[in-house]
């Protein structure tokens, strides 16, 4: 089996995770304020609420993508030589993008949501000026360019080291020409697949962003709203899914350090990742199931691929982890617990997502709180849990680590808070409570208030994770 042969860029990645951890905490606090406002526990003006909502969406997607990118870069750089300066440029562009986005919201009162659904950025009803919308779009483009550079650097190194795209995707293992022992490690296969679909997604996203930007200043440059919607949801779906697929690399690489058993690229693993590569790109019409002008075949494909997407996750990644854990004598600590939680949360969260991907169910659930319900499960208890697990790993040695009481408490509080918080979304969705409403009816507020309390628990847990990380990077140096 191919073993790590390079020193990863530890300090750069530790700094990146520190930034991401701080942003995650800040965005969680914004989320708490939004739920408290919906529950009438505090008063927030509607315009401010929608600005906070835009910041929360963009900030969470940004922070999740940053942690995913850091995880992928860290582990890929153990197998191939990556030019560190490329990541520095990526991070710089990312931070400039964040500045533009924050400026557009705080100074320009931009509040069209992170999905910038055309033509809302241009038609604000007097809530924000064209310049604010332009700043937001430019911010997203800067972040996208940074991601493209990073993806190209990793992609070209994987292609040259592992004998082409097919080699890095372990296709010779599928065809039986290469034994699993000689296959690229799972981290490489997952990274290659993710880089391909995320690059395509970002290019499509950049095209619709630039079109929207031109339309802001030249309204006669018209963009077809249906085409724009397709492009935005293709980009949005691929990008947010890529964050999870990048983060799961941490599970493939770290868990074996805790068990002493290698995680190999088997034939089924290679098939699963090639399927994921196709499914992630083909599934996006499930975001347009209520646009009845869409061709029926596209919406039917969205429903079917939505279901199929669950198969590689549940029967390969989740199943393999469960099989792998049994009798493994794994050493539990904060890192290993959070990484396993991350895969569990992702797997559980995919259930309400698949059910909502059915056209007939979507007709009564789409854009209710059911939607934030399922995506908060596989982000809060999935991707973000994996990221916190990676942070815990960065500051401790797997072999000597202990699951201390403070860590157990933080883990329990975060898990309980996450379950309660997301459950309230699902219950509200089943009660037809619309998502993205600044003002809630009296009869919806009980769930809002309970969710606020659970959100507080999540923040307490996350605060301890980040505080332990800050103390850890000051005192621990990985050998």
């Amino acid at each position, binding site marked *: 089996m191919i073993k790590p042969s390079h020193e990863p860029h530890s300090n750069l990645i530790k700094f990146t995770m520190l930034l991401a951890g701080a942003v995650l905490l800040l965005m969680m606090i914004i989320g708490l304020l939004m739920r408290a406002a919906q529950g009438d526990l505090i008063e927030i003006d509607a315009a401010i609420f929608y600005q906070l909502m835009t910041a929360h969406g963009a900030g969470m997607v940004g922070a999740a993508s940053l942690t995913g990118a850091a995880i992928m870069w860290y582990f890929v750089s153990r197998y191939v030589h990556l030019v560190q300066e490329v990541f520095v440029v990526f991070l710089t562009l990312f931070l400039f993008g964040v500045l533009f986005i924050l400026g557009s919201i705080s100074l320009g009162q931009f509040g069209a949501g992170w999905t910038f659904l055309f*033509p809302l950025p241009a038609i604000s009803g007097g809530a924000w000026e064209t310049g604010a919308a332009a700043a937001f779009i430019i911010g997203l483009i800067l972040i996208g360019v940074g991601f493209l550079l990073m993806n190209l650097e990793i992609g070209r190194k994987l292609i040259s080291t592992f004998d082409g795209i097919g080699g890095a995707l372990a296709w010779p293992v599928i065809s039986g020409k290469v034994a699993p022992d000689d296959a690229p490690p799972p981290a490489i296969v997952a990274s290659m697949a993710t880089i391909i679909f995320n690059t395509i997604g970002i290019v499509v996203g950049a095209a619709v962003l630039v079109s929207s930007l031109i339309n802001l200043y030249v309204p006669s440059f018209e963009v077809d709203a249906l085409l724009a919607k397709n492009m935005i949801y293709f980009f949005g779906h691929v990008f947010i899914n890529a964050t999870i697929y990048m983060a799961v690399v941490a599970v493939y690489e770290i868990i074996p350090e805790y068990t002493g058993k290698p995680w190999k690229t088997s034939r089924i693993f290679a098939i699963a990742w090639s399927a994921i590569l196709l499914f992630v790109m083909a599934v996006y019409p499930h975001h347009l199931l209520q646009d009845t002008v869409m061709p029926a075949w596209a919406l039917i494909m969205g429903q079917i691929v939505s279901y199929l997407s669950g198969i590689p996750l549940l029967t390969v990644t989740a199943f393999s982890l469960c099989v792998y854990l049994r009798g493994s004598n794994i050493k539990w600590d904060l890192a290993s617990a959070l990484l396993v939680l991350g895969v569990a949360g992702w797997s559980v969260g995919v259930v309400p997502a698949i059910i909502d991907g*059915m056209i007939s169910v979507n007709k009564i659930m789409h854009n209710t709180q059911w939607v934030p319900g399922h995506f908060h499960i596989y982000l809060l208890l999935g991707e973000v849990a994996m990221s916190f697990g990676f942070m815990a790993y960065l500051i401790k040695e797997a072999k000597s680590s202990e699951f201390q009481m403070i860590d157990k408490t933080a883990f329990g509080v975060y898990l309980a808070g996450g379950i309660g918080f997301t459950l309230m979304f699902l219950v509200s969705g089943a009660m037809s409570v619309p998502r993205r*409403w600044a003002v809630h009816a009296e009869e919806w507020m009980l769930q809002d208030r309970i969710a606020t309390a659970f959100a507080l628990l999540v923040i307490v847990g996350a605060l301890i994770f980040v505080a332990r990380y800050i103390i850890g990077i000051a005192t621990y140096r990985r050998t």
Partner: protein
Amino acid sequence: MQLYVLALSLSLMGFVSLFFISAVLASRSVDASGSESVSPSPEVRRKKYIWAMFFIGIIVTFASLWRYPHTISNSTQAQAINVTGAQWYWEIDKEEVLLNKPVVFNVHTTDVNHGMGVLNSDGKLMFQTQAMPGYVNKVEHVFTKPGEYKVICLEFCGVSHHDMITEFQVVAKKENKND
């Protein structure tokens, strides 16, 4: 229907969670059955799960798509309503529709994307469709209970998105206004 969806989802989520909980509990076990490389049984079980998911998927797909959920019946009895979304109000060209007869909503917008969601008097979402610039989305529904129904916006459309609410009536028999 929504409560069935919630119950089914929570049951399946619990089922998936149990897999992880049992694996975590068994992680300390000295039983080596977890070693994927030495025991064929996990691979056999995996194949069974994959085929089971395919089989269930085929059944669910056929059952749920046998009649395409967005079918417009083109019935001669269908009542047509034109619904226009705009920041931040709805315009509906009929205030009343008839009970037990198909109603076709022709939904469009004069500015940005909106989402037309129809709630019954219990606040339950009956159906929805999007309103998109340059297009007319059609959705058909047969109302089986008379009363007041609300139209709300389900696609974020700006600062007064939550204020886009209007009503219409479903009546058992069309009233003659000249009576």
